[in-house]
């Protein structure tokens, strides 16, 4: 079958403004958008630029706007889209453009680093040198937010973030949640303090774009609500 992709192109060395270009080519219904982009790059236009690595939704490289919503190019099959119409492919919104579908992720990672996204527990280790114990229920408590691959689809779908990059964004909150609710961790209070501030969870307007965008199907808005609740009540359950 034939598909047409309408891709937002931008080369800072040549273009003052981004513009759309259309590519029509043969494809299979089971092709991923990433496969189509690869075909274009391989055979039609080698200058088309995008990030990719794993090709199966696990590395987080290929977040882009496909038909107006954030998705992973490698997890979006043509058969899930209406291929009788043009498919619009644009870079994720809210971060500086670098080239074509590539944006500068620096702010995204800086925001991630602001929430202490790492395990903290300075208490002595178990005497026998073995693992700290954790019940299966305690482990389950934060399972959902351990799945994050830092693809940025959520944060760059968030209306607050579009307007204000200083908002840490849903992805950072997800990663804070992963530790706040880990029974072994001891820095929940510090993280919650950061998140209670001007750039934290209370900037979330519950727009829900983040959850809709998450390729790992993390219930992001719920996680954010749980963090808000932990700040308000001081309870971590």
């Amino acid at each position: 079958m034939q598909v047409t992709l309408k891709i937002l192109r931008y080369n800072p060395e040549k273009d003052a403004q981004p513009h759309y270009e259309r590519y029509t080519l043969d494809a299979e219904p089971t092709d991923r958008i990433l496969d189509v982009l690869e075909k274009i790059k391989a055979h039609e236009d080698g200058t088309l630029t995008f990030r990719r690595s794993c090709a199966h939704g696990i590395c987080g490289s290929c977040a882009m706007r496909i038909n107006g919503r954030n998705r992973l190019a490698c997890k979006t099959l043509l058969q899930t889209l209406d291929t009788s119409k043009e498919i619009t492919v644009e870079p994720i919104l809210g971060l500086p453009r670098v080239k074509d579908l590539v944006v500068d992720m620096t702010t995204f990672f800086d925001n991630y680093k602001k929430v202490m996204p790492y395990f903290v527990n300075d208490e002595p280790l178990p005497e026998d040198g073995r693992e700290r114990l954790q019940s299966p229920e305690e482990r389950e408590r934060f399972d959902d937010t351990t799945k994050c691959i830092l693809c940025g689809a959520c944060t760059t779908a968030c209306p607050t973030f579009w307007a204000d990059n200083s908002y840490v964004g849903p992805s950072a909150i997800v990663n804070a949640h992963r530790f706040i609710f880990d029974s072994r961790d001891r820095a929940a209070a510090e993280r919650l303090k950061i998140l209670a501030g001007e750039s934290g969870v209370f900037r979330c307007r519950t727009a829900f774009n983040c959850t809709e965008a998450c390729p790992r199907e993390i219930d992001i808005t719920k996680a954010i609500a749980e963090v808000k609740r932990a700040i308000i009540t001081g309870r971590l359950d």
Partner: protein
Amino acid sequence: MSFKTASEGYVKYQGLGNWAFVLHRLTGLGVILFLAIHVVDTAFVYFAPDLYKEAIALYRSPLFGLGEILLVLSIIYHGLNGLRVIYFDMVNPNMWTIEINRKSVIWTWIITLVLWLPAAVVMGSHILEHLGG
């Protein structure tokens, strides 16, 4: 990044939640704008009764009438959506799932319309009644 980037997203980004939010924001801003004016004009009854009559006259113009119908729409939608958000956020975060969110947004719109349409009819008929004189 900026208002420009944000507006592109508000308008173009595909998602029910996105539009629920944009409408919530627009209606909230609309209502506060109206409220500020409304407080001041009502205060004229005390500070400047003569001006109050002019203000009321203004309210009775058909254009304001239409605005008022929109105001009611805004208050209904903003209030319902606000309650939805409050309930999910404060009472039951487990409701924040894709399925429930989509359904609840759609139901919010339906209920808004169901409540607003009769009000709009009543208010519209008031306008029509007074159109002539």
